[in-house]
């Protein structure tokens, strides 16, 4: 876009700004028209993605503080204290739309972006996780998207040498037209070594670092191609291509540069590139920046100020150093073969002044621009269909005649099947810290030089969020916490990725509000504040929005690494104990969907007190060193959970025989997804102690059977050979792509 392009109403519209927003903009400028570069800058800064204009009022209600919170929302990543002077920095971010257009590059650059968010804070990334959702397995596009997204995540994470240790994979029709790719990264940083994105200190140099700027992804989503003129598609790829090799150099160079005290502030260039990084850094510090675009390393010739300011080229950072210290920092980046140039200087006038060839091409007051950003209280209305989908009459659901067959069908359905086809493609061991590999409830990462470990997990049952966004979202928090507890970790804090439909629709905003409230309540109950996150709206095609999908990631800590558990049964003769209560609830279950083709009912009841007593009991028992395995019951219910205790993805198998004496219908007994339940195993001599511990916390606990053999037997309902179900369970995902 040429600097002389006239700003017409049509161009304003193509930049996604409403008339009111444009008026607001002129006012913030002191009643003048913006030039084209300034307009472009406003349009990205005020886009939903950067301004959170529709979500802000609701996000304010989330609990974000706690004694262990070092950095809450507002920085590139959240940070919590795990003791011994160490902190975990973590965040989750969406890359849904790019991954639908180009699954490989879209997913890869999603991973690249979230990694930068974490190491820009001074943390060395230790683990990646991801939450990915696709349409129905038999949708024509699903295999292509699944293959591309997984390969893209693998490509970036593997090359970076950051292990990808967990996540979730979900298939549902509601994602046919909008797949979801949410990437999560956690890193470790010493408490005194945290860096933030502040452009402080008048006179300090502003340094551009990393890859050269090209014409990648300029306004990918909002701009119609004809606005660019010439119609030459070739010149403007809307998808960014990632280069994990450069990012690996960037990571090492940044961490090396951060060891000196020369850096004042640093931030990655994510969405809206140079624009958002420079504005955010100056705005946090209350300063201004004078920038010279002639100094910006460019990949192509003839780039206009508009293009340079809005490019979303990957693998770039912006740093401010103390005056006079720039050379030593630049030398470190040169040593790593990266571009590093002083492109500007921090000023005291609060203005972003950008020059090209000596001419000022943009002159914007930063604070008014940031403060004048629109915030909307969008209309909210409960959907008319909401009550209807919650109706479920169990009496009308016929119980299966043959539970072995039903069970086999479930264990081989893609949502319940083994996800090893996915995580085998991820290097999950690089770094030699992964103590619990993918496949168990939570990944456990040791921290070398300490006795500690962190546990990580990502989860959300979006069908429940559709049936009841409040309770579905509360469940997401509870389930994450339960997963961590099952691994022996104390839950600490949450990051989230809120994937929803079009916020301009009142029904969607109702879902969003309910979801925030439900998450809030969950977080308060478990003492796990939300320290970072991301909102992704407009996940809808035609009239069909995705299910409300608040993907939740949670981090926990294990103080003594020797006291961690996996979900797998260990030794013949061990006793199987069920903590928690079986109920008749089948609403929203995978069983109803797969076997009865029904998506209906309420999610099971979540009793926070019961859930918390379960957590206390399990952590106490693990702390005593008497628990050999622990697995929470979730998707697929008790029967599927037991099978998951019996089978590991590497063909290791050990059977179990259990008897249940509850007064509930058989299908609910086997397949209800009621929360607050964990299956433990221990050696016979410890069983009494384990029951005593559970009861001391008021947690119901019963011996239900024993470990051994090569079958899974559940009362007289299920009797299957593990070899038979292993094939169904382990091959299911592979079948989708071949």
């Amino acid at each position, binding site marked *: 876009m040429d600097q002389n392009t006239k700003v017409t109403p049509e161009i304003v519209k193509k930049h996604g700004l409403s008339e009111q927003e444009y008026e607001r903009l002129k006012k913030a400028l002191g009643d003048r028209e913006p030039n084209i570069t300034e307009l472009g800058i406003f349009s990205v800064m005020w886009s939903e993605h950067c301004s959170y204009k529709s979500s802000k009022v609701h996000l304010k209600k989330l609990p974000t503080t706690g004694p262990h919170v070092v950095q809450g929302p507002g920085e590139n990543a959240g940070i919590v204290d795990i003791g011994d002077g160490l902190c975990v920095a973590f965040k989750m971010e969406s890359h849904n739309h790019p991954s639908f257009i180009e699954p490989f590059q879209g997913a890869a650059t999603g991973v690249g972006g979230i990694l930068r968010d974490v190491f820009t804070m001074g943390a060395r990334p230790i683990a990646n996780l991801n939450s990915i959702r696709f349409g129905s397995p038999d949708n024509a596009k699903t295999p292509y998207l699944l293959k591309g997204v997984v390969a893209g995540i693998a490509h970036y994470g*593997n090359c970076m040498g950051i292990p990808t240790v967990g996540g979730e994979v979900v298939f549902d029709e509601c994602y046919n037209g909008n797949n979801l790719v949410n990437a999560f990264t956690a890193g470790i940083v010493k408490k005194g070594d945290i860096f933030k994105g502040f452009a402080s200190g008048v006179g300090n140099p502003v340094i551009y670092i990393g890859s050269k700027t090209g014409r990648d992804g300029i306004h990918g989503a909002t701009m119609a191609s004809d606005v660019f003129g010439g119609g030459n598609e070739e010149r403007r790829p809307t998808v960014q291509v990632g280069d994990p*090799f450069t990012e*690996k150099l960037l990571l090492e160079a940044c961490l090396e540069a951060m060891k000196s005290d020369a850096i004042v502030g640093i931030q990655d260039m994510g969405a809206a590139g140079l624009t958002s990084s420079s504005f955010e850094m100056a705005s946090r510090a209350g300063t201004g920046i004078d920038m010279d675009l002639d100094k910006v390393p460019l990949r192509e010739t003839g780039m206009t100020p508009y293009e340079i300011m809005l490019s979303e080229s990957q693998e770039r950072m912006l740093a401010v150093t103390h005056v006079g210290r720039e050379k030593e920092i630049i030398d470190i980046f040169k040593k790593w073969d990266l571009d590093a140039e002083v492109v500007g200087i921090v000023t005291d006038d609060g203005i972003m002044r950008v020059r090209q060839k000596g001419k000022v091409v943009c002159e914007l007051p930063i604070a008014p621009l940031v403060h004048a950003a629109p915030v909307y209280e969008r209309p909210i209305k409960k959907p008319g269909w909401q009550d209807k989908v919650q109706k479920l009459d169990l009496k009308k659901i016929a119980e299966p005649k043959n539970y072995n067959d039903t069970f086999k069908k479930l264990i081989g359905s893609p949502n319940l099947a083994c996800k090893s086809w996915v995580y085998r*493609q991820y*290097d999950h*061991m690089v770094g*030699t810290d992964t*103590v619990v590999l993918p496949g168990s409830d939570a990944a456990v990462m040791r921290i070398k030089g300490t006795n500690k470990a962190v546990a990580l997990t990502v989860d959300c049952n979006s069908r429940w969020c559709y049936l009841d966004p409040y309770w579905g979202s509360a469940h997401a928090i509870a389930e994450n916490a339960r997963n961590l507890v099952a691994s022996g970790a104390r839950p600490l804090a949450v990051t989230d990725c809120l994937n929803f439909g079009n916020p301009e629709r009142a029904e969607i905003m109702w879902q969003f509000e309910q979801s925030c409230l439900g998450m809030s309540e969950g977080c308060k109950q478990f003492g796990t504040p939300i320290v970072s996150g991301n909102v992704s709206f407009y996940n809808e095609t035609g009239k069909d929005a995705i299910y409300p999908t608040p993907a939740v990631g949670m981090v926990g800590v294990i103080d003594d690494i020797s006291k961690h558990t996996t979900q797998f049964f260990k030794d013949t003769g061990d006793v199987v104990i069920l903590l928690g209560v079986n109920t008749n609830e089948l609403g929203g279950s995978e069983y109803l969907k797969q076997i009865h083709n029904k998506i209906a009912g309420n999610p099971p009841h979540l009793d926070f007190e019961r859930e918390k007593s379960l957590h206390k009991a399990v952590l106490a028992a693990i702390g005593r060193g008497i628990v050999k395995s622990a697995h929470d019951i979730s998707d697929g219910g008790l029967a599927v959970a037991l099978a998951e205790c019996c089978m590991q993805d*590497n063909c290791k198998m050990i059977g179990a025989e259990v008897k249940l004496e509850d007064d509930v219908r058989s299908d609910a007994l086997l397949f209800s997804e009621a929360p607050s339940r964990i299956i433990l195993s221990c050696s016979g001599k410890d069983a009494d102690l384990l029951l005593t511990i559970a009861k001391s916390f008021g947690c119901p606990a019963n011996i239900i059977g024993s470990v051994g053999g090569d079958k899974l037997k559940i009362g007289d309902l299920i009797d299957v050979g593990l070899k038979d179900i292993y094939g169904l369970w382990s091959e299911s995902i592979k079948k989708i792509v071949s």
Partner: protein
Amino acid sequence: MKFGIVVFPGSNCDRDSFHVPTKVCGQEAVYLWHKDADLKGVDCVILPGGFSYGDYLRCGAIAKQSPVMKSVIEHAKSGGYVIGICNGFQVLTESGLLPGVLMRNTSLTFICKYIQVKVNNKTPWTNKYDAGEVITLPIAHNEGNYFCDEVTLRRLESNGQIAFKYHGENPNGALADIAGITNEKGNVLGLMPHPERISELILGGTDGLRVFESIISTKK
């Protein structure tokens, strides 16, 4: 024994390869920067796993051109120890220190998992294993499919240069189930599995540790 771990741009198992000789085996180790030709007097060079130079063009192809590799080649030719793990193995074949080439896995996907390998204990790198012992090691690679011409294969076999063979399952299509080979003299080893990832009990086992212990034991 003094170890030197080469750091290419894109190496990402360098810190893991440093950790085991020092923290687990109590030996001395230094990092060797790819732009420096100085090997700092090390006895054993480790070419670590990762994606040297992004693995662009071909894995290991660009790395072989770096200044440090000239010294590593000299070190190897004069009998010094060199071990290339995963990407390091690829660098060794590209540099001509080991014969053959590592092609893309037949599955065309990256594979990360535990596999079993059978050990030939007649090399300096494996003398702490039993003859024909089957051990469990992790692999994590996209290009581990070993290939060489028939003459070379026969030579490898008759000289006892095949240090590790996949046992049971061949994960990547490698010729003759080859997981790791040495040069004729035995002082250079390249292998696709990662012994450094399974050298501590907390990580699930110590089957890889004896590779390091074997080579350390050769120094009197």
